[in-house]
């Protein structure tokens, strides 16, 4: 792996990262290679944040750099190519009463770059809105995000609403947030819970393979 690039990401050196990624892409690196390197750098940023070295602002900066790279033409998932259809459709949102969206945005970005069509409903999303969007888009997967304690209640309400609308068997549901556990996942009734966006993406990929 490209240690210099990983270091530049870890240090949140925006200009250097963009320059290096561009030249790697020119040299023929695939978008997946770049994503793997990015992920490693991001994990380092997350660790530094957990060790209280980094600020919330640094976490946000990491997100900004991440998004900038994903927006490079070479990195975009080529939906027009006949060989590449959407992997699946995800309705995503931070649940009712919660405004935290750093985690949701990270998941949204990596899912999009992996070929999912993501309908991001934003924050403080009421259960009805999830239901409406599932019907409208015929989505395969529902992704709920939230870090407040009350998010657990809202997630449960969202799944209850999906069930009441008769849609529970039509969608797989994944909940994300650093405080979620298997226990709370069972309580809210999600198929899976995760506190890691990459792990969550793997689960979604597994699901859509089965659906196809």
């Amino acid at each position, binding site marked *: 792996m490209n240690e210099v690039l990983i270091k530049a990401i870890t240090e949140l050196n925006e200009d250097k990262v963009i320059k290096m990624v561009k030249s790697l892409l020119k040299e023929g690196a695939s978008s997946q290679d770049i994503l793997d390197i990015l992920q490693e750098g991001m994990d380092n940023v997350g660790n530094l944040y*957990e060790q209280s070295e980094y600020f919330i*602002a640094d976490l*946000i*900066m990491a997100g*900004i750099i991440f998004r900038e790279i994903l927006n490079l033409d070479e990195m975009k998932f080529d939906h027009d190519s006949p060989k590449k259809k959407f992997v699946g459709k995800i309705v995503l949102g931070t649940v009712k*009463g919660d405004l935290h969206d750093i985690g949701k945005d990270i998941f949204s970005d990596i899912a999009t770059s992996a070929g999912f069509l993501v309908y991001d409903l934003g924050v403080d999303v009421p259960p009805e809105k999830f239901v409406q969007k599932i019907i409208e888009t015929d989505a395969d997967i529902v992704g709920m995000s939230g870090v407040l*304690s*009350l998010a657990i209640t809202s997630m449960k309400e969202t799944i209850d609403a999906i069930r009441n609308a008769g849609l529970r068997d039509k969608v797989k549901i994944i909940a994300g947030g650093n*405080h979620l556990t298997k*226990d709370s996942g069972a309580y809210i009734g999600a198929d899976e819970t995760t506190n890691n966006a990459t792990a969550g993406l793997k689960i979604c990929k597994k699901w859509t393979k089965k659906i196809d």
Partner: protein
Amino acid sequence: MSNFIIACEMLKDEVLKSQQNTGNKDPVKWMDSILHMDPDKLRADLQDVIDGSTGYDNLLFVYGSCGNGLVGLKATTARLIVPKTADCITMLLYGRNDIDSIRKDTYFLTKGWLEGEKNLRNEYQHSVDKYGEEKARHIFKVMLNHYRYLMLIDSSAYDIDEYIKISEELAIKLELEFMIKTGNVTMMDKLLQGQWDEDFCVVPKGGELTFSSFGTSSCDTILNKF
């Protein structure tokens, strides 16, 4: 009955005010407020304190669920008394029925939140120093994208005038509307006076605090688990 208070440093002024209100003289363990950045670490550190607090009947927590940082705590040495509240913001705005609508688009400040190690002011200054003014503004646009108000809570526990000035200046930098609302330390008064009604979770020795403990339903703890 002997009580030991375990409190977040963020709420120091409010706890001292409540002790003054109620004449309570129980010993207090102040927990570093930086712990709130990482609920897992918060839980681990609180458990250490519980495990080391022998010889008391009750451990009184001046904490909310704080991102489920308190969920999973085991009452190894004494009874645990925990306010059934999401966090210190809801605690300080106790009794206000407009709490849900206020929380929709507001970032809250108190003296404690303004002086904690990684407070919003430091976050901003750090961003300016590290990334420059323009980038810092971009970062804060993303961070506070869904926020409209910056609200100073007057908990009556500190000199409000000094912090109005600081908060107003911060609001201008962050492009938020400044507001001030009256809070209270009622929940702490009740905690310290032993009025542990439906607003509190009482976990008997040997029990464990679960995530539904903080729900509106009755306190549900796992008993005899260990």
